[in-house]
């Protein structure tokens, strides 16, 4: 094969044949076609003017961005989205870390596989089905409100749907697998002999965790948290199923701009702003934490670490 390759000469000028350029440039073409062009269109549309009751006018205007800044409603939705994404991330981390730790450190491959399948299998269902499942479980005649009443936590079964906590619970459930899988890899990569060494030197389990495991899984915690946070910022289906308008995220408002209000330019503007905020948050986190996250590192040391 190598011989065949050698017998295929480059062109006289030493350049590759055109077909090989196509093969080599495929990733770039895919990136440009699937990401850069739509993003550019979104950006361009955000400067067009919406015509009430009609379509849009192809004039360059910044009025959509001005509207975002002038109307408190949209900033309020952005802040709400940030808040609920933070709560979801925290919930996922608190629930996901012990689970990932147990999976990564267990000697039972059967248990590990079983729990992994259980965690991953929830991803096979669409958001809509999982959202409606939680709507059933959290209604006053659903499992959890009845359980809460039986345990004496409430006087009677209280419906949580639609409402803030229904949304939080469902979001943590939906994004927990992403946290667990990220943390599992990180914890699994920690040399278990380091933990044993700490214990041999007299450190208890908590001290070992605090001074050995936790620092060595910092990258995993930040990566998993950023992943869940970014995904939570874009959540659209769950607030519509499990929330009332006060629980609508900016993504829902964007969806409404396009599908209900036919205001594509303003929807594009809100999308661009949401994206910029998310990118800025990732950049700041990476910079402050100095960790290798999503393959993006802040420092050379980060890349090596």
């Amino acid at each position, binding site marked *: 094969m190598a011989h065949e390759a050698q017998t295929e000469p480059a062109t006289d000028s030493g350049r590759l044949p055109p077909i090989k350029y196509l093969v080599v440039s495929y990733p770039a073409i895919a990136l440009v076609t699937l990401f850069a062009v739509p993003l550019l269109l979104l950006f361009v549309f955000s400067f067009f003017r*919406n*015509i*009430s*009751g*009609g*379509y849009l006018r192809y004039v360059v205007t910044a009025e959509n961005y001005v509207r975002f800044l002038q*109307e408190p*409603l949209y900033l*309020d*939705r952005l802040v709400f989205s940030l808040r609920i994404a933070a709560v979801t991330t925290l919930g996922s981390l608190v629930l996901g870390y012990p689970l990932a730790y147990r999976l990564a450190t267990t000697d039972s491959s059967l248990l590990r596989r079983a729990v992994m399948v259980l965690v991953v299998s929830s991803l096979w269902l669409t958001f809509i089905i999982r959202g409606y499942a939680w709507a059933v479980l959290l*209604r*006053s*005649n659903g499992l959890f409100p009845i359980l809460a009443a039986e345990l004496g936590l409430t006087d009677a079964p209280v*419906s949580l749907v*639609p409402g803030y906590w229904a949304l939080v619970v469902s979001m943590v459930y939906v994004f927990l697998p992403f946290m667990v899988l990220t943390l599992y890899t990180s914890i699994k990569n920690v040399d278990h002999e380091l933990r044993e060494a700490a214990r041999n030197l007299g450190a208890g389990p908590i001290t070992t965790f605090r001074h050995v495991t936790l620092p060595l899984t910092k990258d995993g915690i930040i990566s998993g948290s950023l992943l869940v946070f970014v995904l939570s910022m874009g959540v659209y289906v769950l607030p*519509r*199923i499990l929330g*009332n*308008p*006060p629980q*609508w995220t900016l993504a829902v*408002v964007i969806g*409404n701009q*396009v*599908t*209900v*209000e*036919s*205001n594509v330019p*303003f929807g594009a503007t809100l999308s661009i702003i949401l994206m910029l905020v998310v990118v800025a948050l990732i950049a700041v986190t990476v910079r402050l934490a100095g960790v290798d996250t999503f393959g993006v590192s802040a420092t050379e040391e980060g890349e090596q670490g």
Partner: protein
Amino acid sequence: MKVPDNTKISQNRRGFLKYTSVAGAGALTALSGCVGGFSGDGTASSLTVSSFGGAFKEILEAELYEPFEEETGISIESQAQGGTAEIIPRIRSAVENGNAPVDVLTVPVPGVLRGLNSDLWMTHEESEFENLEFISDDLMKYDDDGNLVGIGSQAWLINLVHNTEETDNGPTSWTSLWDSTYEDQMAMMTPPVTGYMPDIAAAIHFDGADSLQSESDIRDVFEKLSEVTPQAQMWYTNEANFQSSLENGETPMGMLYNDITLVLQDQGAPVESTFVDEGSVLGSGRWVSPRTSENGTAITQFIDYASRPAVQDRVSRNLYTVPTIEEQHSELDAETYQRVAGPGLDSAIVPNFDMYVERQEFINQLWNELIIDS
């Protein structure tokens, strides 16, 4: 009289529409420019007709399209269509390219107005029709030049409904929306162009449509409307969400289409629909055609057939929508007419459709502030 057999049909008509909208819109796009048989003189051998999905589509196929096919020999390809915000841009795109993804659509009034603003619709000569005289004048739509563009297809009423196991006497007046007795008990519709709550507020607390003429007046109406939010336990876009909550009593009352409530009743749900004292809210659809369709003659035949009193009555008996013909032309018995139309179209609150289209951005901004801050 034929007994309605709606128990076989999805209980969620417009809700189904939402979920089929993507598929429907995709089908529309795929069919763009390849609408069926055409003889070259406007007399098509087939027509593509789209309507709301779910029960709407099923019943129209059985009670309208099939009899039309038998009588004329023109076959109908039936499609489910998405909501106005989805279908209008696609029709616009097709028309700009000289295509016609469908020949005839039934579109709610705001969609007709948006299409008019973009010059999407075919105009008709009234003299080409034999049955337009039966259609209520209020349900015909003309362009600014007086040309006929839309003919009433179906009408529907938004009523107050309640779960009969949760409460014996449900609310009968729109004033209940402002009544703290019902705090955190009611389901209300969103967006404004669906539930027309600004029109309800204007009718109950102001001078009706006259109070929705200027931005200042509209702000006053919305300020009054903000007082309904404590009563809202649920704001719904998809009827399915409220239907299930209503049936199990979780949300014991609220606003809902009369036709959907009657279907729920047929299925044994403990629900009651009440025609509101001050008038239920009247929504309606129009048959319209993209101006690029080349099947004008067959389109006229189809709409004319659909406008026959007997056909309108037949559809209403099965779909529970209000016939678009004048009441005196309907042969529905008094009980059936009362069930689907209550005191009739004249008693209903007719929304200020123009406002929702011409001031779309302004209205939606106020509305979003109202319900999100609630």
